């Protein structure tokens, strides 16, 4: 097969095969070279040199990667590995070797419904029954698919919090589409571009200037991938994209928000898409401390943090692997003796709660903030 992407073509020759990237969560569980980042790079190099024609098993192993970025953080030669994985996956898709069956199914489903969960598009905003939204505002809340259909308490907490704070915002309900993250991560770029167009037009129509997300996956996609896609497609990109933790931190720093204090001991799980992908580490911890929590760190934290195991299409295609990785993270959390784990991503919360099987509870920071928020100035911000 051909591997035409220029980034992939250059970077594979930069790798020294040092194996520092053995920190990979998938490799830690499976132990075979073909699921190590070093092995993936060597396989790509082999394809480029015409020494290997990947078969189905080889492509499957290549996809046993959550795109968590742990490899990129330690890479001896600073290879932008997340981009390499994603671009290479797009090449597998172009050459007909991918998507893998479940990823293809997600695509078919999402094409029809605007979300990969197979839920009806008209029900996207069902969680929001009882709330009222303006049709236009400078800020839009982008709920994302997981919070809209599976972790609705996060969407509700966000909206309640924004309302408490008197923030002027809009929400697109059924006109919000999947951000495209699952498809960018699995190499199915074309459908992500379609979603980009739909969301973009919706935001323009509503006069939006700032997009706020509670989901770290959506945040990474809209803040990092969308500007690139806009450039590629010739759209003007002037939106400000923030995660709820940025907004909360700003309100706290601006003296507009205080909290009912808690003495609980908590540990923060850095979502890969918020931490390593976007370098947001301190804000959630500072917010938790302001809330009175004792924040204890797991052995691997911030840049070294372990992945929950769900991302990059791993949970959908390789459930057992996702669970194994999740269990390792839960074990680390248990060792801290924290009362519960806090994260800032519905996908992490969902997955870690499943992997933890009730041994320790995982909550999202926006839920805690909403429960304990004491707005000091409810004037419009």
């Amino acid at each position: 097969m051909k591997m035409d992407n220029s980034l992939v073509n250059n970077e594979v020759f930069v790798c020294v095969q040092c194996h520092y990237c053995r920190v990979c969560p998938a490799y830690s569980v499976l132990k075979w070279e073909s699921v190590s980042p070093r092995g993936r790079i060597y396989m790509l190099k082999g394809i480029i040199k015409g020494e290997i024609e990947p078969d189905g098993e080889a492509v499957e192993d290549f996809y046993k990667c959550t795109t968590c970025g742990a490899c990129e953080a330690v890479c001896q030669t600073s290879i932008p590995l997340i981009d390499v994985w994603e671009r290479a996956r797009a090449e597998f898709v172009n050459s007909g070797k991918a998507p893998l069956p479940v990823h293809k199914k997600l695509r078919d489903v999402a094409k029809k419904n605007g979300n990969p969960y197979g839920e009806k598009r008209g029900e996207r905003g069902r969680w929001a029954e009882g709330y009222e939204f303006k049709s236009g505002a400078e800020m839009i809340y982008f709920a994302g698919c997981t919070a809209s259909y599976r972790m609705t308490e996060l969407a509700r907490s966000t909206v309640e919090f924004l309302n408490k704070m008197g923030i002027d915002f809009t929400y697109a309900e059924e006109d919000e589409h999947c951000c495209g993250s699952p498809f960018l991560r699995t190499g199915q770029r074309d459908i992500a571009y379609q979603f980009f167009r739909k969301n973009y037009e919706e935001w323009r129509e509503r006069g939006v200037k700032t997009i706020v997300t509670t989901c770290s996956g959506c945040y990474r996609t809209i803040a990092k991938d969308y500007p690139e896609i806009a450039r590629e497609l010739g759209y003007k990109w002037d939106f400000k994209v923030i995660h709820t933790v940025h907004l909360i931190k700003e309100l706290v720093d601006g003296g507009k928000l205080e909290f009912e204090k808690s003495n609980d001991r908590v540990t923060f799980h850095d979502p890969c898409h918020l931490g390593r992908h976007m370098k947001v580490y301190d804000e959630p911890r500072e917010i938790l401390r302001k809330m009175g929590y004792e924040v204890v760190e797991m052995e691997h934290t911030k840049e070294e943090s372990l992945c929950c195991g769900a991302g990059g299409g791993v949970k959908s295609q390789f459930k057992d692997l996702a669970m194994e990785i999740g269990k390792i993270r839960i074990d680390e959390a248990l060792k801290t003796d924290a009362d519960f784990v806090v994260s800032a991503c519905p996908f992490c919360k969902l997955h870690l709660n499943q992997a933890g099987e009730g041994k320790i509870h995982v909550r999202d920071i926006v839920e805690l903030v909403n429960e304990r928020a004491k707005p000091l100035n409810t004037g419009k911000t």
Partner: protein
Amino acid sequence: MIEGVPFRDDFLERYLCSHDVSSPPLIKRFFKIADGVFQPEKEEDVLRILKFAEKKKIPVIPRGAATSGYGGVIPVRGGFVVDFTRMDRFEIDEDGRILVSEPGAVWWDIERELNKKGLTLRVYPTSAFSSTVGGWIAQNGYGVGSLAYGSIAENVTRLRVADFRGVNETENIHLYAGLEGTTGMITKAWIEVKEFEEMQAYAFHVSPEKAVKLVFSSDSYSALFLDEKYIRMKNSVHSTQIPEKDTLVVVSKKKLDGDESLGNEIWEARFYPMKIKRLGPGIIPAEVIIPSERLSEYLQRISGWNAGSEVWFIKEKLCAVLSFLPWDERKASYTYQWRFAVKALKTAKKLGGRSYSSGLYLSRESKEIFPGYNELLRFKKEVDPHNLLNPVKVFPSGIISKIMALAGVF
């Protein structure tokens, strides 16, 4: 293949386990790829693999993290790769200050645990984030701490080794260290560690001659010299602004009058010697051991090559010089530029030095690397009469060593 022992023989895994960090031109076409990859979980698994290989007369090639660059892990004649990844348990005898480790344990994982107990490794390679106990002993390298403590072999007190006859526990470290699994597979090692002490890195802008004097007049723990060209290369890929001058870094518990902040900056980057590969992309390495009083002359003689060098000082007034010539691996001229490695070795030998290691590519150098070479050869024949334990490595035979000998002529 062998019940209960993790094994794969699909093309991808075999392909991926048939190379090391080196990218030598041309000769790769003479290498086979592995017939399969075993991942033993315990010593008994290793014995079963050896029995199976002996019965079928198939080579067995031990593999740690495959971070070595002399071809030691390459299954040149095919055979089974024995990947020690899963044998990574270790214990620390705090009172005796001894680490007892399986071969697949990674140096830095061990260091983290030692530190928790107020202990630290005496020596470790700068690949410590990934390289393994078995791999470094089998390679017998020098590294951080070698100024005070010598090679890894000098710090190993006992080994357990598996061969076709069974398992043997021995204090004859020299029968295995540096021999790259050609005389047996290391299944356990006893290694001396030391008390953790606060140390500081100090930088000095000095010539190689002065560096040698400074290093051997103090009793420091470790010392590293970077030449101006190497620093220039580092700056361009690390986006650092280290003064582009010959620089010595000495690590010591005593206060020295060098630059602490620069010393720390360079010391922290010690784990990334190959970051400069981005410049090629590709590097041609030349690694030699020379008497330290000839260091300046050696660096002078290879200076026409535009390679950058880093030098690790070793007790007994030796130094390991590692020089890198960045070159685009995809260019036809890459093959030609490998003359650099050959010329550098020739230069070192003229100055009383030798190759850093042997392995596959430089097995013809073994006689000079191992003082008791003939005894080792006899031992090899005794334990491995069918030449199945990592064949063609260390003890030269076959086409590769002939090609390498030919390369030496030019």
